[in-house]
């Protein structure tokens, strides 16, 4: 991280710290405090949108660990979210287990399932691994939709909200608090994994797996671990998804969503936790802006027609992403770093 000129890290601890100055801590605490006040003045629509973003951020963070950090392409993140969501559904509805207790279980079960589909990672890589994880997308959704006794099949199932006393996740504002805390915790976990021995092993595997193995990194163990952790995140996102909709159905977990999540990692900037968060927020936010723009345009220009603008919004949405990738292929995070550096170094260019 670039520092203000003349300010140097004088210890290893400070060099690897996430927040290295008091100002950064203060800004973060104020930012979080402001976000916590959102339910006091925001409408349910905006809170619902934030809840959707929280789900996406958690799932994309998982993908960031597998793909961005460890270099193992995964095209099944949405299906793995499905495992998490159905773990909550089945355990709470069929076995009467508390929805809160299902939170870690959703992560663990998904992590274990993810390891099965991640196992081929030792033998295959890149596009071949992509195909293997693509299989996960179809197999998981197929299995879930055919275990009708347990999952309700294609008809889906209702999941009870998480409650504690009078507090229920059915309300968008309450779910906002849950989602917010979960997201912060998951971001912290993802960021810290990156700074540990495990994270460094992931990066070594991503950069050159043969060199990593020569250095003594157990490829099989770490690749599987990457899948476990990434899928654990997907499971937590699945839990949050089940709380968000309270109605889960296999058709909600599509390949398109999995591809979008990979797109979010790329748009945000591969290999960066902040980038993964930025990518998820950017893509979901852009989607929302396109919706608002088309609704507004349809009201102002009814002759052209609401439908025309609605379809147009998808084109604009796609165009923005293509233009973005052409002009900033290293992702939003890189642009953010450049901005910070130029701000700190001002008025000097370098």
């Amino acid at each position, binding site marked *: 991280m670039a520092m203000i000129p003349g300010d140097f890290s004088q210890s290893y601890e400070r060099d690897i710290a996430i927040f290295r100055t008091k100002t950064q801590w203060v800004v973060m605490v104020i930012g979080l405090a402001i976000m916590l006040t959102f339910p006091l003045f925001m*409408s*349910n*629509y*905006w*809170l*619902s*949108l934030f809840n*959707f973003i929280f789900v996406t951020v958690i799932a994309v963070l998982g993908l960031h660990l597998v793909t961005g950090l460890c270099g193992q392409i995964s095209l099944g993140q949405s299906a793995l979210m499905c495992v998490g969501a159905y773990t909550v559904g089945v355990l709470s509805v069929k076995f009467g287990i508390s929805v809160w207790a299902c939170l870690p279980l959703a992560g663990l079960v998904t992590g274990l399932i993810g390891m099965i589909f991640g196992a081929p990672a030792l033998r295959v890589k890149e596009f071949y691994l992509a195909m293997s994880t693509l299989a996960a997308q179809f197999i998981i959704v*197929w299995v879930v*939709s055919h275990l009708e006794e347990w999952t*309700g*099949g*294609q*008809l*889906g199932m*209702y999941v009870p909200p998480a409650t504690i006393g009078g507090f229920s996740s*059915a*309300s*968008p504002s309450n779910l906002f608090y849950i989602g917010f805390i979960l997201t912060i915790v998951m971001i912290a976990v993802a960021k810290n994994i990156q700074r540990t021995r495990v994270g460094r092993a992931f990066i070594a595997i991503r950069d050159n797996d043969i060199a990593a193995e020569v250095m003594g990194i157990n490829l099989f163990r770490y690749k599987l671990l990457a899948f476990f952790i990434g899928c654990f995140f997907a499971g937590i996102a699945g839990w949050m998804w089940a709380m*968000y*909709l*309270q*109605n889960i*159905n296999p*058709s*909600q977990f*599509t390949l*398109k*969503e999995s591809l979008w999540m990979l797109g979010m990692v790329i748009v945000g900037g591969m290999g960066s936790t902040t980038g993964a968060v930025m990518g998820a927020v950017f893509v979901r936010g852009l989607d*929302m802006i396109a*919706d608002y723009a*088309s*609704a507004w345009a*349809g*009201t*102002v*220009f*009814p*002759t*052209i027609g*609401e*439908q025309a603008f*609605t*379809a147009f*919004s*998808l084109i604009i949405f796609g165009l923005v992403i293509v233009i973005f990738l052409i002009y900033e292929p290293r992702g939003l995070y890189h642009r953010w770093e450049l901005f910070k550096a130029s701000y700190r170094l001002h008025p000097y260019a370098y």
Partner: protein
Amino acid sequence: MKNRIKLVGLVLVCLLVLPLLLACAKAPSATPAATEKVITVGYLNDLSGAISCCGIADQVGLKNYLQYIQDEKRIPGVKFDVVSWDDRYDVSRVAAGYRYLLDKGVNLIVTMAVHQSETMRPMAVADKMLILGYNTSELNIADPIWCFTQQPLTENANASFFNWVTQNWDYQKTGRKPVVAEINWDNSMGKAGAKGAEAYCKSLPDKLDWKGTIVVPPGTMDFSQPALQLNQWGCDYVFSTMVNGPTTNLMKEKNARGYKFQVCTGGWGFVCFKQSKDVGGKDIDGLYWISAEGWHTDGTAGLKLADTICRRYNSASDIEKLGYLENICYNFGLVFGMEVEFLVKGAISAGLDPTNSEVLRGQATKMKIDPQGLYPPMTWSNAKGSGVDKLRMYQIKLVNGVPEPALITDWFDVTKYKK
């Protein structure tokens, strides 16, 4: 210099485009009179995705009917406003859409596909928000009901077709039972359809030779293998619980290979008839179609009204281009409009607030409307949520070389097959 030329060019383009946009801009609408009540109807459906041909026509029908109510002053002192949300046939967008509509202050929500109302249901129950849907599932109409739909359960429609087969098969002449099967996309509608077909056919082993269900992944458009399988089974009748495209392709495949089995599809299978006709051409000749909706050539009062409203509020080119008159979804929209009219009128005549969703829901449980052939008489008085219990049977026949649905059985009770 180059930059300056570019800038001047850009300004010129903007100046040229601006009048065009302003010409399309909406004239400032008159603000409603102080005594006027505004009912805001939320519309959540697919306007740019896989079933947008249906969503767009449905939306136009709803808007046209609400405009018709206003223009004809059928509910004095009430104005209608429609706020829409395009879910792009993506379930993940339904919850955000629901919240968006609530944020816009809607008094009730009109939607279509079963996954949309199912997804909204838990939130609608918590918020006490009335949902008017098109088709339904058992989950959707479980207590407490907040979603009231036009269609019966899909399983009933499929069973009704096989019931029709038993009544029309010549057992004496053929000396055997008809061989029947079902085919569907692996989705909730397909599953429900298969369930109904299988339960009914298996319950009559002496009347029907049930071969089973062929389930294909959602999105399948190539039916060479399934059609071959159906032919190898020696099927006489096959029910397709799929939408236009796949059913049309199944017909094309069957005709190309000379297979003899007859195909029937449900209301969903021909919602956008213009599309099926354009894509399927003469290949859809002979296809059975079991549906609650009336067809625009049936000549009943409701359909004449639909024709009048459509021509009054849409340009001839739009009618031709989008095929509203051949799109059953336009009629769904009109029926949704009639439902809204009934609910609001009922609330006002009872001295209740028609902008209160809970009041509207109370009216829904008493609803009884007769769309005069556009749709069967509808009632939700049994509070079961699913609207009609009567269907019609059509068969597509070539009229001057053009496929047209011809009515073969009118209004049969979909619950009659039940023992």
